[in-house]
C-alpha cells in the first residue's frame, strides 16, 4: 500500500511540476493546486496508513477507541487545505488582473515589474 501511495504522490508531483513550468499562467495555478494535493498526501502518508477508526471520542468514553487514526497530521492538513485555497483564490484574481494588464496569459511576457 505504501508503494502505491508513494507512486500516487510522485505522479501528482510530476504533473504539478510540469504544469507549473508551462508558459500559460492558468496552468501555473492549476499546477499549484495539484502541488497542494501532493503535499497533503505526503503529510497524510507520513502519519501511517491503516484503516482505523476516525479520531472521535464516542459518548461515554474519554478517549478515541483503538485503533484510531493519528489526528495530528489531519489537523495539519486541514490547515494546509484551507490556506492553499486562500492562496489560490488570491492568485487567480491577481493573475486575471495581471494578464488583463499585460494583455496576454504568457508568463514569458510578465517580465517588467514597474508598469
Amino acid at each position, binding site marked *: 500500500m505504501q508503494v502505491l501511495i508513494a507512486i500516487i504522490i510522485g505522479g501528482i508531483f510530476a504533473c504539478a511540476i510540469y504544469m507549473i513550468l508551462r508558459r500559460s499562467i492558468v496552468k501555473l495555478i492549476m499546477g499549484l493546486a495539484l502541488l497542494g494535493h501532493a503535499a497533503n498526501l505526503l503529510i497524510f502518508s507520513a502519519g501511517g496508513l491503516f484503516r482505523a477508526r476516525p479520531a472521535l471520542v464516542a459518548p461515554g468514553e474519554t478517549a478515541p477507541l483503538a485503533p484510531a487514526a493519528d489526528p495530528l497530521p489531519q489537523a495539519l492538513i486541514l490547515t494546509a487545505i484551507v*490556506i492553499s485555497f486562500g492562496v489560490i483564490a488570491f492568485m487567480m484574481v491577481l493573475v486575471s488582473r495581471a494578464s488583463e494588464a499585460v494583455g496576454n496569459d504568457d508568463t514569458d511576457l510578465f517580465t517588467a515589474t514597474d508598469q
Partner: protein
Amino acid sequence: MTLLAIVMSGFVIGVLAPWVVRAIGGVAGGRAGVGAGWALAALPATIACFLLSHVPGVAAGRVLSESFPWIPGLGIDLSFTLDGLSLLFALLISGIGALIMVYAGRYLAGHPHQGRLFCFLLLFMASMLGVVLAANVLTLFVFWELTSITSYLLIGFDHRRKEARAAALQALLVTGLGGLAMLAGLLLMGHVAGTYSIPEILARREALQSHALAPAITVLVLLGCFTKSAQFPFHFWLPGAMEAPTPISAYLHSSTMVKAGIYLMARLTPALGSTELWQWLVTGAGGVTMLAGALLAMRESYLKRLLAYSTVSALGIITMGLGIGTEKAIGAAIAFILAHALYKGSLFMVAGAIDHETGEKSVDRLSGLRRSMPLLSIIALASGASMAGMAPLAGFVSKEMMLEATLRSPLLGWLLTGSLVLGAALLVVVAALVAVRPFFGDERPTPRHAHEPPVSLLLGPGVLAALGFLVALAPGVLADPLIGPAASATLGAESHTHFKIWHGLNLALGLSVLGLLAGVGVYATRSRWLGAASATRRLDGMTPTACYHGLLRFVLVFAESQTRALQTGRLRDYLMVIFISTTLLVGYTLFTRVDAPTFDNLAPFYWLDGAIAGLILLSSLAAVTAKHRLLAIIALGLAGLGVTMFYVIYAAPDLALTQIAIEALSVVLFVLVFRRLPDFRSLSTRAGKLRDAMVALAGGAMMTGLVLMATAFPHTESVASELAARAYPEGHGRNVVNVILVDFRALDTMGEITVLAIASMGVFALLNLRERPRTSPIRPHAELRP
C-alpha cells in the same frame, strides 16, 4: 579609561564637528571655517599633550594598558596599550592632526562641506589612534578597517568629481582587499598562538614560528601591510589619492594612513620578524618600492604628485629597514618614520599653500616665489633640506642611520646600500623640485596674485620644519625618548638607538655626500632626463595600475554577464532552477545517506485503493494534457475528488468534508475567473516540453523515493496519542482533530484565519480595482528591450 577616552573622543567630537562649524559660523560669519579649525584642533592637541606627558614614563619602561570586555565569547577585548612604538605613532597622529585641523580650517574656509571635512578628519584620526593603541588583533582590525572607510570618505571628499570618486574607490578596494587577507592572517595567528591579545602573541614567538602555518600567516599579514603602506606593486593607489584636497593628502600620506602598514609590520616584528621569508619579502618589497617610487617621481611635475611618489619611496626605505631587522636597521627605520612624518607633512602643507595662494600646481610654471612669500620659502627650504638628507636636520640623521644599517645588513648589503644611495639621490631631486625651484629664479605671473599665506597656513609646516631642526640638534629632548623605546618595542629587546647627528667621518657619510651630489647633478641636468622619463609612459599598459583597471573591468563585465544569464526575468527559468536543484540535492542525500527501505511492515493492498489511485493519476494527467480550459478544470476537480476519497477510506472525515467543499469552490472560482482569459494555446516547442517533462518526472521520482524512504522508518509514538487522550477531558470536544485546531493549536488556527482574511481582502481589492488611464500602455516584453 584614559586610552579608551583618547580613541573614542575623536569619534564623538567628529560626529559633532558639523554643528561646531555651524555654531561658530553663527558668531564669526564668513570666517567660520578658520575659527572651527582652531577650535577643533583643541582635541588632537589635548591628546598630544597627554601623550607627551607620558614620554618620560614610557622611556623609563612603563607601559600603560587597559582592557574592557567586548565580545568575551570570541576572545575580543577592547584593550589598549601605550608602549614606545604606540606612543611614537599616536603622538605623530595627534600632533600632526592638530596642525592639520588649523590648516584645513583656513585652506577650505567657506567651503560648503567644511563641517563634513572636519568630521571625516576626526573620525579618521580616532580610527588611526585605535589602530596604534589596540592591544588585541581583532580590535586592531576593526580600527584598521575604519581607517580604510574614513580614508575613502576623505579621498572622495570632492565627490562631484569623477576622478576623486575613482581614486577613493581605488584606495578602498586595494586597502580593503589587503585588509581581508590580513584578517585571515590575524585569525590564523590568533588560532596558532591561542590568544588574540597582541602582547601575549608577541611573547609566543617560538610557538608561532615553528608552526606549519607560519609562512601563510606571514604572507597574509604582509599583504595587508603592503597594500596599506603602498608597497610595490600596490603603490598606485597613493598617487591617485592626491585627488583629495591638500590638508587630507598631507595628513593621510605623511604620518597616518600609509604608516598604518608600517606600524603593523613593526608591531609584529617580534613575533613574525627575522625569518628568512619575512626578511626577503619585506626587504625586497621595500627596496623595489623605494626605487620604483623615486623613479616614477622623475616623470612628474605637479607638486603633490611629486610628493606622493617620494612618499612611496620613503615608505619603501622604512619597510626595507624593518625587513633587514638588525638592531641598527630597526632603529634607523623608526628614526626615518619620525623624520619623514615631519618633513613630508610640512612639504605637503607648503605645496597646498603655494597652490592656495597662487592657483598653480606645476613646478614647471612656478618661479621666484621667495620674494612674495619669504616665510613660506624658508619653511620649504628647511623641510626640503631634511628630505634631501642635509645636515643638521632630522632627514640627514635618519638617512645616515639607514646607510649604516644597510652597510651592515646580513642580506645583500651592497645591493641595498647601492639602491639606497640611488633612491636618496632621486629624493634630492624631488626635494629640489618642490622646495627650491618654485621659490628661486625670476618671478613669473601666476593665476592668482602671489602673497604670503596667512598664519593658519604657515603654522603647520612651520612647526614641523622647526621640529626637524629640534630633533636633530637636541636629540635628548624629543628624539631619543621617542625613538629608543619605539625601537625596543619593535626589536622585542633593549635597543640602544640614539639619534646622533655626527657619526664621524665614515663610509656612510661619504655615501650620503655622494648621493647628495648625484642628486644635485641629476637636478641640474633634469631637462635632458625628462625625455627618457616620459618615454617610460609607453610602458604604462603593463603597470599594476593597468592590471587594477583590467581586473576592475573584468569583475564588472563578469558580474553583468552572469546577472544577465541568471536573471532572465522569466518565472519559468527561476522555477526550473528551484526544481532541478531541489531534486538533485534531495535525491543525492537520499541515495548516499539513507539506507534502502526494507518494506517489511507494509499495509495490505486493497483494490478500492488501486482504483482511486488510478482515478487520481489519470485525472492529473488529463489536467496536464487537456487542450481546453474547461476540460482541465474538470480533470483537476476529479483529482481532488480522488484525494477526498482517500481521506474517507483512511479515517479522516474532517479532511474529506473540507476537501470536497474547497474542491467545489475551486472549480466554481476557476470557471468564473478564467472565463475571461484566452483559451489554451500551444506555446512551447516540442524540445521545451520534453525538457520540462524530464524535470517533472525526475522531481516526481525523487518524491516517490522520499515517501518510500520515509515509510521505511518505524512509525514511532508521536504526541498524537497524548493529544487524543487529553482532547475530551481537557478540551471538552469529542472530535480530536477539531480540538487540536481550536484548542491545542489555536494560535496556528488564528494565523490561518488571518491569512484567509488578508487573501479575501486582496481578492476584493483586486476585483474592485478601477482601470486608471495610463500614460504609457504596457507593451509586450520584446519591445521593452532597446
